[in-house]
């Protein structure tokens, strides 16, 4: 299955707001201006790898335009935890850490290379999410990041069809790490997906269009109290900021459904 559900929301989540980049502003400066210290970092790349990854997620958008996003990571204290397809490094070390690596945010500072940026927050308590990273890094039983990486490299290099991994239910490595860390902390990051093929576009749509779902999640968690969800983070309606400098294609102004995947 390779499809996304429509949330039924009539308007996008007002807590995810545009914060246009200033002239010449780098991504690090933009991030500092948001005041967000911990959350999900989405980036949209302009180079070949980034563009191909953005196109690969087109099917998840109602207007089938390329996604704004090619990368997802978990940012905390200026360090981004992810599994970057364009910086695998030593293969042995990569596998030993289940593909999880940490990079400094300045790596993504260049707005020409990463013209699109968003930071999204799904809970007020990121400690359980960050704690979960150790669990992901230490074993491949729940999430086999090298297997996802192999599938996506094959797609990037045109060995397989570009959208073959998503069709096969294989999420993009960085997004899968981010989603699993949230899941271990009790937070569902991709309610719109009919599969577990997590990707940055699915995370983006969750934040933009699934506010009601998260509102209900927060209510359920509060009602259950600490008993059932000990160690979990308290869900919240997603909040965040974004700057879109590159759309690849302009949206179809006449399509009534286009808005659902902006």
């Amino acid at each position, binding site marked *: 299955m390779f499809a996304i559900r429509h949330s039924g929301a009539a308007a996008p989540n007002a807590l995810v707001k545009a914060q246009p980049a200033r002239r010449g502003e780098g991504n690090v400066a933009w991030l500092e201006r948001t005041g967000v210290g911990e959350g999900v970092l989405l980036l949209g790349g302009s180079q070949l790898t980034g563009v191909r990854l953005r196109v690969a997620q087109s099917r998840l958008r109602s207007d089938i335009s390329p996604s704004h996003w090619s990368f997802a990571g978990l940012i905390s204290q200026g360090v981004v935890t992810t599994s970057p397809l364009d910086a695998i490094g030593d293969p042995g070390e990569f596998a030993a850490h289940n593909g999880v690596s940490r990079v400094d945010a300045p790596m993504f500072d260049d707005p020409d290379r990463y013209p699109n940026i968003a930071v999204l927050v799904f809970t007020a308590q990121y400690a359980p999410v960050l704690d979960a990273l150790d669990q992901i890094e230490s074993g491949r039983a*729940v999430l086999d990041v090298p297997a996802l990486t192999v599938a996506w490299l094959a797609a990037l290099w045109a060995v397989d069809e570009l959208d073959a991994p998503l069709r096969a*239910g294989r999420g993009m490595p960085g997004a899968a790490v981010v989603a699993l860390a949230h899941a*271990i902390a009790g937070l569902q990051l991709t309610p719109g997906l009919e*599969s*577990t093929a997590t990707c940055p576009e699915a995370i983006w749509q969750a934040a933009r269009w699934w506010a009601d*779902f998260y509102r209900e*999640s927060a209510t359920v968690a509060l009602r259950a109290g600490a008993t059932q969800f000990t160690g979990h983070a308290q869900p919240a309606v997603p909040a965040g900021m974004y700057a879109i400098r590159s759309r690849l294609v302009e949206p179809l102004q006449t399509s009534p459904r286009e808005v659902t995947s902006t």
Partner: protein
Amino acid sequence: MNPLLLPREVTATDAWVGVVWPGAQPPASMTIVGGPAEQPVGAAWQPVFSIDPRQPSSFQRAQVSGLSPGTSYQLALVSGGQVLAQCRLKTLPDALPSASLPLNMLIASCYSELRDGAGALGRAYARLPAASQPDLAIMMGDQVYLDTPVAHFLLRRHTPEQLAFEFASNYQATWAANQPDTGFGPLATGVAAFLSGDDHELWNNAPTPAVHLPDTWTGDGREIWSKIAALLFDAYQTPRRLHALELPPLSIRSVDTRFARAADHSVFMDPQAMTEIAAWLATLSGPGMLILGQPIFVTEAGWRGNLADWGLPDFAQYDDLVRALTSVQHDVLVVTGDVHFGRVAEAVLPNGSRLVEIIASPMVLVDDRAGRSWHEPPSAFPARPVPCAPTSAVTVNPYRTIENHFSILSLWAEGQAVRVDHSGWEIGVDGSLPRPVPGYSGRLQ
């Protein structure tokens, strides 16, 4: 019809048997022998419908106590020195045994007596090799199809007396034929059984009105049908809607998901039972086994539910069940039936715990138009977004069957883990050559 002695729930030291006395007044003095002491059958008989409205049958449940763990018993209903009925059962062991002598559990659902003219089920059961013979049976529903033969119900309504006659006939044909080696007979009287019901213990897609059953078109009609069917279920199957078995390190719950189902799609089980199941799942200290009437790895039926059968995801309470299942700290084996094929699928939760679902259905298919096709599970669990529940990928085991079958789970303890070795047993045309099909084999932590 002869009197019936039906082995039901067992613990390590106790057994419950159902006594069904046909027609006339039961004798004042009856005993159950075969246990450590003669057990008098009390006077607390309840009337239940029979095929003769002038002479209702009677039933009661008797508890036989003081039994030894893991021991086989041949019990007999005796009056005036005469054996009136017999049954066999085996008590549970104190704990799950070791690999040298595993506990065998038969799991099955969906038996149409009308379609088992050859008595194939019982014949296949009797031909199980010794190593596969069950110590207990778990039945997940549709042990009777009260809404068959369809022609009896299709074009006209029935009086309560007519419904009672039809349903009692159906139960008697299934349970009271009492042949030791054919049909349902060996399963009715030859093994301790933990039973739960599904829609055909009432009618197709109950409590939703069925298009082809005029008797279910009105609220009064459904209420009359339900009361008669529930009383017969209590008498021939069990009055319990929630079973608890403790076989350390394995803990087991079997819960009814039909009789308390609400037509407004709010709940499929009694809310108190849901609370108990959620609390049990949250506090598991080892692997769990949850027995349900319908699968969990399934998508919403949507509009199709009006015509076929609503599934668990079509109810709001599914969210509670999903949240409880996705919060477990130990592996949980979900055993279910209903769907007329055999399947094994598995989801690994974000915390590493596993949910393994084994489907065993049908024993004897009710209608070829309602089976003979196998369906993949959805690729994710839950298949629709559930607040506060993470989504996990579902993988499918190569095991699959659309043939009439039951399954045997061989269970043994490995320290605090539980080994499960599952085989489907395809019954074949007449049951003379049952064929094992290897299914799930794994270690639950």
